[in-house]
């Protein structure tokens, strides 16, 4: 179907891109590079999983980058300055994130405001609070941090599958299960298909909206914790602009920005594509990092144009005025 077509296209782009990279730099095709790619993009994968839910439901969440920043600062302060045990700090910060997301969802639903602008306010708010907490980078020295960063599964070929990469993969699998196998997931797609029809079918639209933004913020919080492991520090300016990378990854992964269609697997592929571009540029050495942005922009355009084209085709075949019947499956066993 259409949904799997776009994921397939993304997969083809990824494989073809990877093959091209490997042709030019044979070293890229090693478990070391691939494992590093997973580690470097672990936080992006987690936050993008949450964004996938939001976008499929027809919304958008601009606050995720700020929530990551807030989480790193809060965690660092809690562990290093306030003497809270790391796991208690994680739990606490995730609860705060959940409340924050729920509040945004509630405002969006109750006041019928565009998610874009509500989460924009959320973005200012979260970033502002993290600035208030601290403007300096706080190194985290808790033993758990070094323990986690030392942990890795050795892969054949010298790759190290780190703890945070594993965390991302586990979270992605859980999110995929949640999205594709549960009532909650079905409702997320339903909301993106038509809010009004979903409400008419008896689904509580308000609580769903709140839960979706809550999920997104909690995943951003988890991404923030992972980010703090990655950098071993908390900094209020971390993950500035990550919301854009996240949205780009989700769209490149075949999720419709207008909602109703998409998958966690696609998003994962989208994250990998961005990581691959980054890796290629690192290997090349002569290209500068800004090419990442340009390439991402070009891919974004290609995928959006593709979606637009597919939708126009679908519209042409289904929205013909009454009288002309669209070509459609005729029920086989129907009486005539």
């Amino acid at each position, binding site marked *: 179907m259409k949904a799997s077509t776009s994921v397939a296209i993304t997969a083809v782009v990824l494989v073809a891109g990877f093959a091209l990279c490997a042709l030019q730099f044979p070293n890229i095709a090693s478990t070391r590079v691939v494992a590093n790619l997973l580690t470097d993009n672990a936080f992006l994968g987690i936050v993008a999983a949450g964004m996938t839910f939001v976008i499929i439901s027809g919304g958008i969440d601009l606050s995720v980058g700020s929530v990551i920043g807030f989480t790193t600062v809060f965690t660092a302060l809690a562990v290093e300055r306030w003497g809270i045990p790391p796991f208690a700090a994680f739990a606490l910060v995730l609860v705060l994130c959940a409340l924050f997301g729920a509040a945004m969802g509630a405002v969006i639903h109750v006041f019928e405001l565009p998610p874009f602008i509500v989460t924009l306010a959320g973005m200012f708010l979260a970033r502002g609070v993290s600035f208030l907490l601290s403007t300096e980078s706080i190194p985290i020295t808790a033993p758990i941090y070094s323990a986690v960063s030392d942990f890795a599964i050795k892969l054949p070929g010298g790759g190290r599958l780190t703890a945070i990469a594993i965390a991302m993969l586990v979270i992605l699998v859980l999110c995929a299960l949640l999205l594709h196998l549960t*009532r909650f997931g079905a*409702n997320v797609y339903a909301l993106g298909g038509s809010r009004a029809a979903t409400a008419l079918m008896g689904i509580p639209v308000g609580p769903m909206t709140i839960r979706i933004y809550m999920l997104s913020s909690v995943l951003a919080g988890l991404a923030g914790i992972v980010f703090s492991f990655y950098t071993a520090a908390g900094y209020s300016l971390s993950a500035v602009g990550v919301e854009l990378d996240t949205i780009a990854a989700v769209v490149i992964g075949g999720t419709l920005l207008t909602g109703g269609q998409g998958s966690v697997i696609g998003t994962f592929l989208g994250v990998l594509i961005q990581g691959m571009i980054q890796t290629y540029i690192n290997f090349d050495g002569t290209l500068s990092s800004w090419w990442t942005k340009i390439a991402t922009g070009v891919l974004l355009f290609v995928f959006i144009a593709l979606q637009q084209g597919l939708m126009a085709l679908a519209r042409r075949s289904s929205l013909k*005025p009454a009288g002309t019947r669209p070509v459609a499956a005729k029920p086989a066993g129907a009486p005539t």
Partner: protein
Amino acid sequence: MKALDGVDFTLGEGEIHALLGENGAGKSTLIKVVTGVFARDAGTIRLAGREIAPRSAKDAVDAGIATVYQEVNLLPNLSVAQNLYLGRQPTRFGVVREGEMKRRARALLLDYGLDIDVGAPLSSYSVAVQHITAIARAVDLSARVLILDEPTASLDRHEVEILFNVMRKLADRGIGIVFVSHFLDQVYEICDRVTVLRNGRLIGSREIAELPRLDLIRMMLGRELAETTHERAASQPDTAREVCVSFKNYGKQGYIAPFDLELRRGEVVGLAGLLGSGRTETARLVFGAERADSGEATIDGKAIKLSSPRDGASLGFGYCPEERKTEGIVADLTVRENIVLALQARRGLHRPLSRREQDEIAMRYIRMLDIRPPDPERPIGLLSGGNQQKALLARWLATSPKLLVLDEPTRGIDVGAHAEIIRLVRELCEQGLALLVISSELDEIVTYSNRVVVLRDRAHVEELKGEAVEVSSILAAIAADTAPAQEAAS
């Protein structure tokens, strides 16, 4: 103005009951009251003897009243099975049992004679399948009353047949079905009783077997006694009037069959027919709001380009659409701005109307058409329907048009404004305008039309001129070809 005025409606168990009437007759208001979308201010609803008071769509469903709308209110992006069981999927440990759900969905649809892949997205199926899916979901939620709002509007013959089989099966099970449709053939084929509404009032409720087709159409369109008392438009020979624009073999595939039409200065052409017969479609082609794919339009023998509203407007055509709120007014802008909009669009950006000119134009038409309140600076969304309609007329009159296309200009406006608009149409005609007017009020059409084109099933079927323009002859033309079939059937 009341949307629904003291209407009685009774639906028997296992009965298929047609609810008929033109747009604005009160059908959808009645449905919305019954399904709890609108609040009623008088009267009661009883279901199996027990009084119910639904306050929301969910209340109505819980009480056993389910509605399936013309635009299927399901989710095109989800699978058929998900659509059937959304919110009540079978689960084990929180995981939806996809296999079990599909099995049940398949069994459920087989019961309706549909053997399809329930895992495919709903959007990949025809509207008929989507309708049956919606009905299956509604009935599965224990419906005792099923309301079908224009379910057949976009179905072909074969699909209608499938739907009718489903309806008969459900009626046999004792479910009462309200069937809203503008296809009279279908009403005669499937229904037991018919109730007709007009202007929010009950016209009558009859056994369909005892109601000849002509009488039914008269109930829907005509007004008793109107035929003999109306004033007639002056009839002059056609040739005396200058041709404004003519259409030859003009049509659009799947939209309206090719037609010939000549519009002359100082002449009103009425378009008559039932809802969905192709009246609005004709109007939109004539103005350029839709692009034709066959035939040609000419002015003085020269072919003209008419592929966008801009083309129509620059040729001196004007169009007041039926959907006043969504296609007519710009609600936030003032009456003045709404009035000058078309003129300004035609003049282009570089020749703006000065504020003085705008005020003059607005005031001139506010006075001429008696728009109330006479305040050009009031947002037009705050005016009554009749005054909005007059402002839209003013919008086009300000462009000094050659041709005006009016789609249901008197719909949803009160009696006083109604008469005024009819008077205006005749005045404009006398000033030499060509007019093409759509109305469901046949006596209204007869009052101002020099010629009447009768439509049926998206085609022009007859053109009545001069003395032949009578309510009775229009009614006969609308009912014409199908009447013998009906007699044969009964």
